[in-house]
């Protein structure tokens, strides 16, 4: 105990733990640990209640609809729910079984029932997704069978349309008889199943999605690089200028940010088109002849220029916020120790801007990958992105399963990039502002 008397920590512990009970209590005698836990629990509950509206909002308006939309990409019961008997026949038999009498009877019964219930269009649309041209086969057959159909059904149906004997059609129906399907994902990467169920590439002239995914990621990378090249010096200038002047410049950076996206896109049209301001000036200066006006818009160039401009503030702002906190004495110290200005920049200044650069590049890239309206308006033939195809399937062909599959692939690719970024740079390193 002599040692304990000398040890200052032991003395504090003895005093604090209370001589009589041996543990800490509050003024009214309750154990301190429990009282603390309870009050903390109450505070946590209150904090949770505060964010509850936001949580519910995000859940209802964001998570649930996106989840439902994504479900469509692999689940479509348009065929199986409305054609139960023939679906059951498919379930009983093996792939490649030619349709027997039982199958024809089931098909005729299902077609009649679904024509009566007015769901034949849903069935036809589902098959049409995988086998183009078969929707009208279902709807026109539906109109005929509503008037009545007599056995033998195989002959009766083939009399209505000989396409009913097509093995490709039966193979497509077999796949559609299971509501869970990978076909939309296959189609989204230019693949399809043949009559034997093997996965193969679609004809070359039908291939479009893989190329568009590639182009979307490539253009997004180019745009991210351009915003970096243009934005870095501006952010540096903003961060180093005296406050009054940098605020003025900041307004110039933010002004386009506050302008409507469509206004900015249309302004680029006015500037860049062949009869536009830039071409007019070039012709007036005599740099190009009247007949050689440059095509700078309605192609990839137009998409890159307009999107770089529109996304530039997303690069500048995070960079600026990081650069402002960089202590200038580090670079000065490097210079005083003999580093050239380039070495000081490369070894001292630039690494410190990385969190801002990472955040900016991430923002710009992810926004660019999903960009829709600008490429639609100024992209022409060569500046279309995958989002334009998603929009086409949403609003024109009304094939929402396909739109969902394309969107899911896009989402997955962005998440993979995010994960890669986390592995390479570290997400903790991200500084958004």
């Amino acid at each position: 105990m002599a040692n304990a008397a000398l040890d200052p920590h032991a003395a504090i512990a003895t005093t604090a733990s209370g001589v009589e009970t041996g543990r800490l209590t509050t003024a009214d005698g309750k154990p301190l640990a429990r009282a603390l836990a309870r009050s903390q629990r109450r505070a946590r509950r209150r904090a949770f209640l505060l964010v509850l509206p936001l949580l519910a909002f995000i859940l209802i308006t964001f998570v649930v609809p996106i989840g439902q939309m994504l479900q469509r990409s692999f689940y479509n019961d348009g065929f199986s729910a409305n054609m139960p008997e023939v679906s059951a026949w498919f379930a009983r038999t093996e792939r490649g079984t030619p349709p027997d009498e039982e199958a024809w009877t089931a098909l005729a019964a299902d077609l009649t029932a679904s024509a009566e219930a007015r769901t034949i269009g849903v069935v036809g649309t589902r098959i049409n997704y995988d086998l183009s041209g078969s929707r009208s086969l279902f709807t026109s057959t539906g109109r005929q069978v509503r008037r009545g159909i007599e056995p033998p059904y195989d002959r009766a149906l083939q009399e209505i349309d000989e396409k009913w004997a097509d093995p490709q059609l039966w193979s497509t129906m077999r796949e559609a008889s299971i509501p869970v399907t990978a076909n939309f994902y296959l189609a989204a990467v230019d693949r399809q199943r043949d009559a034997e169920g093997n996965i193969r590439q679609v004809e070359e002239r039908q291939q479009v999605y893989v190329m568009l995914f590639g182009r979307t990621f490539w253009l997004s990378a180019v745009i991210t690089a351009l915003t970096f090249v243009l934005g870095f010096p501006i952010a540096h200038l903003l961060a180093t200028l005296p406050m009054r002047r940098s605020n003025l410049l900041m307004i110039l950076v933010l002004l386009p940010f506050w302008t409507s996206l469509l206004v900015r896109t249309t302004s680029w049209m006015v500037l860049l088109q062949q009869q536009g301001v830039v071409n007019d000036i070039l012709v007036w200066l005599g740099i190009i002849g009247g007949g050689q006006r440059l095509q700078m818009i309605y192609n990839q160039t137009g998409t890159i220029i307009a999107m770089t401009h529109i996304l530039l503030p997303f690069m500048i702002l995070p960079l600026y916020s990081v650069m402002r906190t960089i202590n200038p004495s580090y670079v000065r110290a490097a210079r005083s120790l003999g580093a050239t200005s380039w070495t000081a920049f490369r070894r001292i200044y630039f690494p410190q801007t990385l969190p801002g650069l990472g955040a900016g590049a991430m923002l710009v890239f992810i926004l660019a990958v999903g960009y829709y309206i600008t490429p639609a308006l100024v992209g022409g033939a060569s500046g279309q992105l995958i989002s334009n195809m998603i929009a086409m399937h949403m609003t024109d062909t009304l094939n929402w399963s396909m739109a969902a599959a394309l969107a899911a692939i896009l989402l997955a690719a962005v998440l993979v990039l995010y994960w890669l970024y986390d592995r390479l740079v570290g997400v903790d390193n991200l500084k958004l502002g």
Partner: protein
Amino acid sequence: MKRVLFLGTAIGLIGGPALADVNLLSWGGAYGNSHLEAYAKPFTDETGTAVNMSDADNPATPIKAQVEAGNVSIDVASVEYADAVRLCDEGALETIDTSILVAAEDGTAAEEDFIDGAITECFVGTDVYSMVLAFNADKYADAKPASPADFFDTESFPGKRTMRKGAKFNLELALMADGVPAAEVYDVLATPEGVDRAFAKLDTIKDDVIWWEAGAQPPQLLADGEVNMAYAFNGRIFNAAQADGQPFEIIWDGQIYEMEGWVVPKGAPNLEEAMEFVAWTTAPAPQARAAEFISYGPPRRSAASMVGNIEGGDQPMGPHLPTSEANMTNALGSDLDFWVDHDAELNERFNSWLAS
């Protein structure tokens, strides 16, 4: 007593009008305005039923979403014919009893008075619009282009063209320009060789085409001198020529016409009022009135002669309508079954062709 009265009024104010309203979903812009002026306002004046109008990019999309979600707030919507067929087949629309439609003034039954295909199980046509070729008359002072073949003839008629970014209309136009008569276009297009032929024809002007996405773009491109010829919706060209005095002329030869009309989504909250609205607005007089606001022709034969002057002007609207007889000589009616079947396939090929 006073209190009861007050309560009654309050309930009447909250419940009454909302129950009897017609919720109309339209497209906005000049077209939506024609619905407002020729249909919604006079209907309310006549029947006392209020019409709440809202706009969508394409009303078919919200209909599909609302019916699938089982939460329908739209009573009547204006949709394109193709979407009406598709939604009807999918069971997303109420069937419309044709006996409610108003007969023509000379007593002709409505079924006879509407042009072919303007009435289906779920759809009643309100107007006919068309894709037409148009050119800037200032650019072609001497010889003027007059046919689809001229549109593809970049030697005689130099300058850029603008076309819709999509397979529909362009493939038909290409075949007509290649000498296929309007009546045979879809037979040819139904064969793989026909599709190849159409793309081969499009190849000949691919480098001279700026592709438009929004309907407002072609008149803009024409006006800026960015293109000399355009393949666009007739209403857009007409508006630019009339309202803005642009020197645009329309080539009616080879026009491809389509219909738009009313549909009633399945489970519409005010079904009875919706049907009343459909019947009232598709009578000849309101249809003729709507055609004075926008150059889309009425689909009823008896309405053609009732169309007056362009709204706010002293020129007759008649010659500017796709349905006028002189304009119909080499016209092609868009084949919806074909496009509902092949939409996705041909658009994929078209996009692949564009990118190559």
